[in-house]
């Protein structure tokens, strides 16, 4: 694509810019800005290797079209549109002349190609802008040479360099090739725009794939098709960790369309290839039909005795004893509780949850044998392609360099695709079959073989003084794990509110062993902890006979000492709480019995969010969520206001859907739910209006995929209390009788 590089030089260990000429004319800009994602790979490559391996973020062709590579996986969070917006803004090109291309996995060329933790905005906001600004500087320098005028007499707008004094101008496309001859500017030294001059950042930009989506073009992992491709399903033991004993493989082989039936005892750790049976056929439907004829006998292993009910009983037993581990303690909780005018205790519980991405897990792989070895080419909807490739390499005993990974658009992430179990399955099947294979899970497998949001149990006690002020807080958190180590996604963070805002505080933890894989679900830990903390705080507000907003504002005034890294900023939280109270009419509205408003706030993923839910419960107990108001503070800029609103509304409705009816239940080690009837996703008729307000504050611009979710479930449950007097201490709501008289 490009000729050998000129003007290429490593600018520092951290920053590189590469400028080269496109074959056929034009400018190619490559950059490496932050090495945190691939330090090891870079060290191995050396400076020369690194510079040679740099890839294009930006291509400008003589026709003036600008192509920008989107490096991160797109799961619906809008990153494929947003990161190019940042580059285009500083490059100063018209958005309609920008084309966006998805980058493949390449940890040397692109830093941190992952989707998770709402990190893209804070991580990439300035680096992406610097790439654009460097491109603009090159084009201005080329224009100065062309027009024979000093650089500082030139200005740019929408892909044109202008010399105001003479009225002459030159389009980027005309000087792109000339710019490619120039020396790369120092990325650290380029001048960024004054934000008041932004023309793209801060404007609503529709998703770059919208046209392809509404016309049904093949964009997703499930849509990948290769010549000679076969289709596979992979049956695993319904109890996690179980192993195949025997199966009627020959009968399945005889089914129509079936080309291969492969059994495996599994390879490597439990995170590697699991024991199971792969059925490969000429069409997916044929493979799935044949799989239904499979009669497999499993050694279910130790997991078969587990049940959700058993865990509940076990948690209650553990709560009677002292916590196995003290996570944090300050002040004298015991004395404070003794001296309290009023004490309140309550136990809270939340269930396992599945991710239920609408696009079931899938992956396409092609194995090409080369002598005794071979190469794998993979097309995969994953949130963490680099980790996925490393896992495949480890399990199959391949070098990572023998695996190429293409990123597809992804039909929902929600944290499920941070794990790459389906990649390992597809890779193994493709190698065994020696032909391109697309593996696709059924909905049932997707529901039953997930990596679940862990259930959890909190046993709480708090004290209020005679003035209704919170003086003591004790939490015994019973979760899953081994000893002091909580299972993935099952921990408790040392800065969760109201830590550091209560004069005396204790948080202890006890763990129960679990034979079920757990993982991160959108706003991990926060999505559960917020329900518990913000519901119990609501109980305390009522016990203190105080308004729930006023009680929270007072709590936020009570900072004892800095919560340190990761703790919420009380000023920012007060700001969003005041804003949401104002927008929702919290202080002025009076609702009839059966209707009520609830409030909650939570800080996670660097975002401060406060939410008010208004709900109505009929005497018979039928719940309607009437409306939600959201106030969020994610710093200085809302990069793409259209997507920002969409993300917040979606996350809030996601939280409401979880609270209404979602749970994964274990019995006999098996997941009982199998589809959208057992694990109901929110439908349109259940979706209330969600009014979104952003409070712009002078802080770092941060992400929006997650932090608006956590306050939604507790705000809803608090609204139910306001409407009915019934306190909800466990989810989902479908388990509760909400009727009142």
């Amino acid at each position, binding site marked *: 694509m490009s000729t050998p590089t000129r003007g290429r030089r490593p600018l520092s260990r951290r920053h590189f810019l590469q400028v080269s000429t496109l074959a056929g004319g034009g400018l190619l800009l490559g950059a490496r800005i932050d090495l945190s994602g691939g330090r090891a790979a870079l060290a191995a490559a050396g400076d020369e290797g690194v510079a040679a391996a740099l890839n294009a973020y930006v291509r400008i062709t003589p026709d003036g079209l600008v192509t920008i590579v989107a490096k991160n996986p797109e*799961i619906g969070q809008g990153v494929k549109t947003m990161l190019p917006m940042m580059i285009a803004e500083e490059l100063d090109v018209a958005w309609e002349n920008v084309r966006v291309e998805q980058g493949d996995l390449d940890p040397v060329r692109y830093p941190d190609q992952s989707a998770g933790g709402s990190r893209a905005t804070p991580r990439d906001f300035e680096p992406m802008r610097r790439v654009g600004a460097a491109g603009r500087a090159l084009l201005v320098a080329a224009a100065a040479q062309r027009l024979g005028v000093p650089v500082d007499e030139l200005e740019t707008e929408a892909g044109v360099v202008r010399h105001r004094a003479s009225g002459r101008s030159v389009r980027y496309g005309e000087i792109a090739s000339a710019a490619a001859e120039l020396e790369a500017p120092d990325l650290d030294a380029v001048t960024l725009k004054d934000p008041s001059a932004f023309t793209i950042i801060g404007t609503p930009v529709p998703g770059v794939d919208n046209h392809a989506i509404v016309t*049904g073009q093949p964009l997703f992992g499930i849509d990948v098709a290769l010549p000679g491709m076969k289709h596979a399903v992979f049956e695993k033991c319904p109890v996690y960790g179980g192993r195949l004993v025997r199966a009627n493989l020959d009968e399945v082989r005889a089914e129509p369309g079936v080309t291969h039936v492969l059994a495996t005892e599994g390879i490597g750790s439990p995170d590697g290839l699991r024991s199971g049976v792969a059925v490969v056929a000429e069409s997916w439907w044929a493979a799935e039909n044949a799989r239904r004829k499979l009669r497999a006998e499993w050694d279910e292993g130790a997991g078969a005795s587990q049940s959700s009910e058993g865990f509940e009983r076990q948690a209650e037993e553990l709560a009677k004893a002292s916590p196995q581990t003290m996570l944090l303690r300050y002040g004298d909780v015991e004395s404070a509780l003794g001296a309290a005018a009023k004490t309140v205790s309550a136990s809270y519980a939340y269930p396992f949850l599945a991710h239920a991405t609408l696009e079931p897990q899938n992956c396409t792989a092609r194995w090409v044998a080369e002598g005794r070895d071979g190469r794998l080419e993979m097309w995969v909807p994953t949130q963490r392609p680099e980790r996925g490739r490393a896992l495949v390499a480890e399990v199959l005993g391949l070098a990572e360099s023998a695996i190429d990974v293409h990123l597809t658009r992804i039909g929902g992430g929600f944290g499920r695709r941070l794990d790459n179990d389906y990649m390992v399955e597809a890779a193994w099947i493709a190698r065994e079959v020696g032909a391109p294979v697309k593996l696709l899970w059924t909905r049932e497998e997707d529901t039953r073989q997930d990596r679940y949001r862990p259930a959890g149990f909190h046993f709480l006690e708090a004290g209020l003084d005679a003035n209704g002020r919170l003086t003591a807080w004790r939490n015994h958190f019973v979760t899953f794990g081994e000893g002091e180590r909580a299972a993935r996604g099952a921990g408790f963070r040392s800065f969760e509110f109201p830590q550091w805002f209560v004069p005396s505080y204790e948080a202890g933890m006890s763990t129960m062993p679990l034979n079920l894989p757990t993982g991160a679900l959108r706003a991990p830990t926060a999505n559960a902890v917020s329900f518990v903390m913000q519901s119990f705080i609501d109980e305390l507000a009522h016990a203190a006979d105080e308004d729930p907003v006023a009680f929270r504002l007072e709590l936020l005034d009570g900072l004892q000492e800095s919560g340190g890294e990761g703790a919420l900023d009380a000023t920012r939280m007060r700001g969003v709480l005041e804003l949401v109270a104002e927008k929702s009419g919290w202080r002025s509205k009076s609702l009839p019995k059966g209707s009520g408003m609830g409030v909650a706030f939570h800080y996670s993923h660097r975002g401060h969010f406060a939410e008010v839910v208004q709900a109505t419960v009929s005497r018979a107990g039928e719940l309607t969520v009437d409306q939600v108001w959201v106030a969020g503070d994610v710093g200085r800029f809302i990069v793409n206001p259209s997507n920002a609103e969409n993300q917040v509304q979606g996350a809030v409705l996601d939280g409401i859907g979880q609270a209404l009816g979602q749970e994964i239940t274990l019995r006999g080690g098996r997941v009982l739910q199998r589809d959208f009837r057992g694990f109901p996703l929110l439908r349109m008729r259940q979706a209330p209006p969600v009014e979104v307000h952003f409070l712009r504050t002078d802080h770092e611009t941060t992400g929006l995929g997650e932090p608006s979710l956590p306050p939604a479930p507790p705000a809803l449950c608090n609204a139910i209390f306001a409407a009915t007097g019934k306190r909800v201490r466990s989810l989902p709501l479908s388990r509760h009788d909400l009727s009142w008289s």
Partner: protein
Amino acid sequence: MAITFTLNGAPTTVDVPPEMPLLWVLRDALELRGAKFGCGLNQCGACTVHVDGEARRSCVLPISRIAGAEVTTIEGLSADGSHPVQVAWKEIDVPQCGYCQAGQIMTASALLARNADPSDAEIDEAMDNVCRCATYLRIRKAVHRSAELMAGARAATATSEQREG
């Protein structure tokens, strides 16, 4: 078994098992991958297509039942994304992940063909498709916008017919 039907306006014959669902015939045999697999159980609507003008869930529709029918998929809704529902979807910037949207659009366009100006309640009743990203508020808005665009187009046609008449 050879089955003939009309697909996006073109006569089409496939030779597949009669019980094979239309969805998999479309996706794997005919290489039209706009209709999506979400559940295979008639629960989510990601696979929605039009059969003789009605929105149907193709994942549970055996191909044998399609013989002689007119099937329209998202690829055939318009040649270039110019159907008012597609235009409205882009204008309102509905999609997040986008996986369900073809099914949503097919359900919405079938609704609007029989009800030119549906109320919120009518939209909620007809649009039972799952959107896991919960873009429901924008979907509802985009259905109303589609209705406006279609009404505008009808008014323009009526005016030009009057003029010609």
